[in-house]
């Protein structure tokens, strides 16, 4: 972990003002994560506080219904705070505390990372401020209140498209103005080095557990691991330990919104080109002059015009594949999983469920698919009702 590059991607494309803080963070990260005491403390937090290891559930009805590969759900939705985000946040908040920081700031899209950050901050006695696109504060009003209940201050971001990318810009600005006592808890495998490496390492527990659990149940590796991709933290977490196992297909599902051929989508791999934003070189949705495109998805968590640099590299070396899933397909899958298995998934995770529905039937019954169910859908119920034209307010 020195160059911070994944092939040609990644790097540290940030203002000089924050460079020393990134160096300090990298040093602290390497120091503490090699210490047995830190590792033990984090493991205890993940197990006793967040509820790890998360379950690997055999979705028998879904398997029977689709008539092909055996489907397992990795239940990150059962973690404390309702998604995989807590894995990374506990790691970074603990690190921030060891570094003597007294305040954490975070960006959030759907609000899951903001809620996780506010939670960890409450637990560890850190001040917490969350930046959230104004449009997202309206789409996810419940999560805003949840963060406030946890003692965090939420700043609605009104610049640009008022969504996740603008929240990242605003959090970067805030960090550059107050570095001494503040750590920026980046929520995905994006941003300048060391964030993509650090966040991946805090999330890779997902794939390590999947491997152990599938081996115990089936005595073999899965044939495919499917996860949704915005910035890509749950996906890299679910993929990482399988990267060396070439027989395991790694499939990321990106948000195609109204469709990849329409102006309203967030399908970075399908439509993006290589560029530089938020401290990293990667793929981005942009025009010929490099202006970042206003992207769209029903899912606030996937509504991001870029993708983590390690995913860009995995794509280039043909180790992972990325497929677009539309709003309609995701909402269908949201309903499908709710009715078939009694599990309401986050609309983000529903993108992965949607692709599994297409894939399972094309595979024989002796094959195994693992879907990373990255979050639960409680936060999405109101938005899905709106999408389906159902009035739930009196």
């Amino acid at each position: 972990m020195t160059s911070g590059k994944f092939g040609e991607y990644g790097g540290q494309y940030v203002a000089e003002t924050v460079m020393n803080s990134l160096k300090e963070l990298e040093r602290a990260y390497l120091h503490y994560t090699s210490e047995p005491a830190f590792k033990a403390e984090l493991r205890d937090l993940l197990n006793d506080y967040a509820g790890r290891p998360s379950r690997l559930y055999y979705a028998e009805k879904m398997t029977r219904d689709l008539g092909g590969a055996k489907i397992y759900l990795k239940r990150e939705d059962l973690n404390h705070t309702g998604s995989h985000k807590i894995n990374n946040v506990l790691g970074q908040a603990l690190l921030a505390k060891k570094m003597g920081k007294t305040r954490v700031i975070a960006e959030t899209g759907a609000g899951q990372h903001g809620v996780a950050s506010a939670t960890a901050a409450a637990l560890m006695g850190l001040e917490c401020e969350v930046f959230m696109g104004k449009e997202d504060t309206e789409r996810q009003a419940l999560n805003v209140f949840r963060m406030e209940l946890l003692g965090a201050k939420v700043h609605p971001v009104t610049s640009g498209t008022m969504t996740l990318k603008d929240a990242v810009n605003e959090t970067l600005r805030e960090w550059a103005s107050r570095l001494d006592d503040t750590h920026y808890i980046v929520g995905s495998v994006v941003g300048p080095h060391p964030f993509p490496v650090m966040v991946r390492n805090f999330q890779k527990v997902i794939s390590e557990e999947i491997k152990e659990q599938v081996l115990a149940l089936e005595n073999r590796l899965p044939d495919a691991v499917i996860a949704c991709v915005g910035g890509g933290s749950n996906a890299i977490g679910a993929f990482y330990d399988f990267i060396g196992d070439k027989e395991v297909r790694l499939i990321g599902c990106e948000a195609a919104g109204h469709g990849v051929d329409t102006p309203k989508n967030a399908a970075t791999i399908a439509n993006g080109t290589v560029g530089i934003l938020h401290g990293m070189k990667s793929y981005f949705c942009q025009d010929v002059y490099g202006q970042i495109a206003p992207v769209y998805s029903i899912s606030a968590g996937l509504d991001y015009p870029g993708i983590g640099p390690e995913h860009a590299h995995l794509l280039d070396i043909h180790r992972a594949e990325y497929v677009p899933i539309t709003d309609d397909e995701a909402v269908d899958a949201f309903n499908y999983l709710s009715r078939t298995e009694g599990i309401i998934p986050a609309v983000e995770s529903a993108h992965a469920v949607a692709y599994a529905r297409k894939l399972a039937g094309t595979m024989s019954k002796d094959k195994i698919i693992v879907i990373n169910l990255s979050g639960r859908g409680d936060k999405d119920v109101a938005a899905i009702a709106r999408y389906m034209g159902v009035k739930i307010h009196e």
Partner: protein
Amino acid sequence: MNRIKEAFKNDKKALISFIMGGDPDIETTEKLIFALAEAGVDLFEIGIPFSDPAADGIVIQQASVRALEKGCTADDLLNMVKRLREKITAPIVFLTYANSIFAYGKERFMERCADCGIDGVIVPDIPYEEKAELAEVCHKYNIAQIALVAPTSKERTEMIAKEAQGFLYCVSTLGVTGVRDEIRTNMAEIIQRVRSVSDVPCAVGFGISTPEQARDMASVSDGAIVGTAIVKIVGEYGRDCAEPVRQYVSRIREEMDTL
């Protein structure tokens, strides 16, 4: 690059202005450059508007939005500089985020810069560690790759200064661009560190809004950069901004000339 050297050569301190290209439109930007020249500006920074200016405060963000709404592109600004070059002899540099150059094509961008009479580029999101991204093409087309040092640079200051080209942009405060009531950073100390390893001219920017601040910052360095305060006037007066900007910048020039 020699034009930059000229700008710092005379006895007076260099006055550097920043305006956002295409704000509120290209025609006004052209008029502004002449007004700034008349007010005694020695070096012009022109911003290329970008959708996600993460190093800028609200005033310059809004200027970017205004320029982009009018459809301003890098090509429009390159063509404008080429026209200006018939009359303007002072150095002109682009202040641009990395993605604008990268999307245009690094080589093609620098080639066009050289052809249109651009002397340098300031790229706030390319720090020392990533400067190789542009070093080769900048060298090939004789475009100065202007580096920044910040109050947080500390021991990095010497490393950056040693390889600095054109002039060194010394950031006076933490955070993003924008006016500040007072500048508390000890700039003299930062410039001392630079001087210990390099004789590159140092200009101080970020937060300067009054003639007195400009004078104070220039007194410990080789020049002062005024950006947000000018862009604010542009935002206020729109297409009629040239004269109020000229008056404002003339007052800064007068105050700096008392040094």
